[in-house]
């Protein structure tokens, strides 16, 4: 859901002029793209906006008893190829016991190719290599899974356009290897105008809805629709996590900083 995005386009379009909008709209309704085009575009909007990006992220995890935990980190991202490999830094700022720990990911989309992951622990000056893990485990103890944050490869599922409303495409995604995941399928409601995934619903093996991810706030940043608040709800545990993005910047022109040097000491631009 990283730097994932959305619908302010609608607003923009309204402002730009109703006539133009109307024409575009009519054209859009006439030909619905095929499902592969839809999911490919949505994937790019959600995870590959611009060539690189930076954001401050605040997570609020609320368990069913109402107890809150907070995570704050800075994310730096650079795409190797649109829809393909990517590199990430996550600089932790809160809570205090993980402050200044840094996590680096070289994400690989090829099937059966695991991501490379490192963790730097400043208190002992150690660069640890993290073994590739089950991508459907919690990211930093939140209700977001590693895969929600880094993106699920489109090749993992078969995609089916189940319905088209005035504003959204509804796509049903069924895993090709069902025993590797805890869901039987999930649906994504994608905004027709800008291809921002607005809501994901996960159904368990009995076909019951148990988990949702919703894009609650979408802003246009540097002309790119950007999800700035998303919320995941775990209906089974009663826990939810809000993730808010602030100070989002795109195309900051980062060099290839995703190496040990900057893992040990972030580039200054990243920390400002």
């Amino acid at each position, binding site marked *: 859901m990283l730097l994932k995005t959305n619908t302010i386009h609608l607003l923009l379009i309204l402002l730009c002029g109703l006539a133009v909008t109307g024409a575009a709209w009519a054209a859009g309704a006439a030909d619905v793209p095929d499902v592969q085009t839809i999911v490919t575009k949505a994937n790019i909007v959600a995870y590959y906006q611009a060539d690189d990006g930076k954001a401050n992220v605040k997570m609020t995890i609320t368990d069913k008893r109402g107890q809150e*935990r907070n995570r704050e980190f800075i994310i730096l991202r650079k795409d190797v190829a649109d829809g393909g490999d990517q590199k990430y830094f996550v600089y932790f700022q809160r*809570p205090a*016991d993980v402050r200044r720990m840094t996590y680096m990911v070289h994400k690989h989309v090829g099937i059966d190719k695991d991501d490379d992951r490192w963790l730097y622990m400043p208190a002992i000056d150690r660069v640890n*290599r993290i*073994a590739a893990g089950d991508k459907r485990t919690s990211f930093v*103890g939140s209700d977001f899974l590693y895969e929600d944050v880094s993106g699920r490869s489109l090749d993992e599922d078969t995609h089916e356009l189940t319905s088209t409303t005035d504003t959204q495409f509804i796509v049903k995604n069924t895993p090709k290897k069902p025993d590797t995941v805890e869901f039987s399928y999930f649906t994504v409601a994608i905004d027709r105008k800008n291809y921002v995934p607005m809501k994901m619903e996960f159904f368990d093996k009995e076909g019951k809805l148990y988990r949702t991810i919703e894009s609650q706030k979408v802003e246009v940043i540097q002309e790119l629709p950007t999800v700035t608040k998303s919320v995941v709800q775990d209906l089974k545990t009663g826990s939810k996590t809000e993730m808010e993005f602030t100070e989002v910047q795109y195309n900051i022109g980062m060099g290839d900083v995703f190496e*040990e040097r900057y893992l040990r*000491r972030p580039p200054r631009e990243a920390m400002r």
Partner: protein
Amino acid sequence: MMVSQRVVAVVLMLTAACGSIVLAQDAEAKEDPIQSFFDKLDTEYHGFYEMRAGYRLQNDRNEKDMSIMEGRYQFDLFSMRDWGDIKVKGDVYGDGVMEEGVFDLREANLFARPTDTMDVKVGRQVLTWGTGDMIFINDLFPKDWQSFFIGRDVEYLKAPSDAAKISLFMDWANLDIAYTPEFDSDRFISGERISYWHPMMGAAAGEDNTLSTERRREFFEEDETALRLYKNVNNYELAVYGYWGYWKSPGGFNQAMTDAIFPELYVYGASARGNVGKGIGNAEIGYYDSVDDRCGDDPLINNSEMRYLIGYTQEIGRDFTAGLQYYVEQMLDYSDYEDNQPTGMPKRDEFRHLTTLRLTKLLMNQNLRLSLFTYYSPSDEDVYLRPIANYKASDNLSVEVGSNIFFGDEAYTFFGQFEDNTNAYMAVRYSF
């Protein structure tokens, strides 16, 4: 009765800890004057308060029953300036075992990036490299074995160095140079709070027979230089290392056999780390050139050695990771060692084999971490177990229980000598 006294002491300490934490939380809710002071200086201020209490699980006739009893405050100051960064981190603690107050400056350094291809860090700093997990071949930066064995946080296994580290980043490889003008030894086991096998006494010894050492204190004369040349090739991390300094823990005795010494040591090595199958594999090798006993015939000084390590880590279940390592120390010129070892002294084996197993499981939304680290030597027939359970009750408050368990067939092997130091501890930490 001893046991009930222990229980009372632990309960009192934990009550005090909880009390101070409640106060600390209250204090945080209001405006913290220290925090606002550092805010004005454009300096980040963080740290923690911690209470830690532990006891031996058996009697040790050479040491107290209490293995650790301390209240600790760590401050961590960081400031980003135009020219670079300043970092100062220190611990103040009351030590109930040694009955003293201690200030331990962990870091005080300046960091700068003077050019696109160079980083410099000067001052007191913690330095680490190499691929081993709690096994060190080419990482010859100081370790604090005492803290490790008494159950302080694992952060304290690494002792700081007073050094300058220069890193050069080139297309063909990167180079780190760490220069320490005055030798920084390990904080080694000296009998102070961990009883040990005293080779000259031929018996277990403790606080009444601490190991006296000839320190090396000649600034710029008794110095250390460590190098690492490394490159990432398709995410396989390759490195070669060099070290010119001294055995980090005592590696011999003086001629009068009164004091332990730190003989000269050069080390040359290499390592590799990367994806292997579903997990991470690592391999490391080092040649320890014991300069003062190159022939191996001086019974008072360590022989040269070869050290080998292979390791593999994999996730074996959800939030459940296992890591295995196999490590060998090979004494070189072993026949010379055998020929010259005084009769009656227990002899080391030519090969010391050591395996480690790390199991880590996260539970309760990753707030509970259960971990077990095991060292087992089939050649020494000794074991060191480190079970730890750490629970994050909130973002600020964590509780930990753990144990350091040693056993072995012989009183003089690496871990066997510490058998009577087997201990268990509890800790409460409030981080801010």
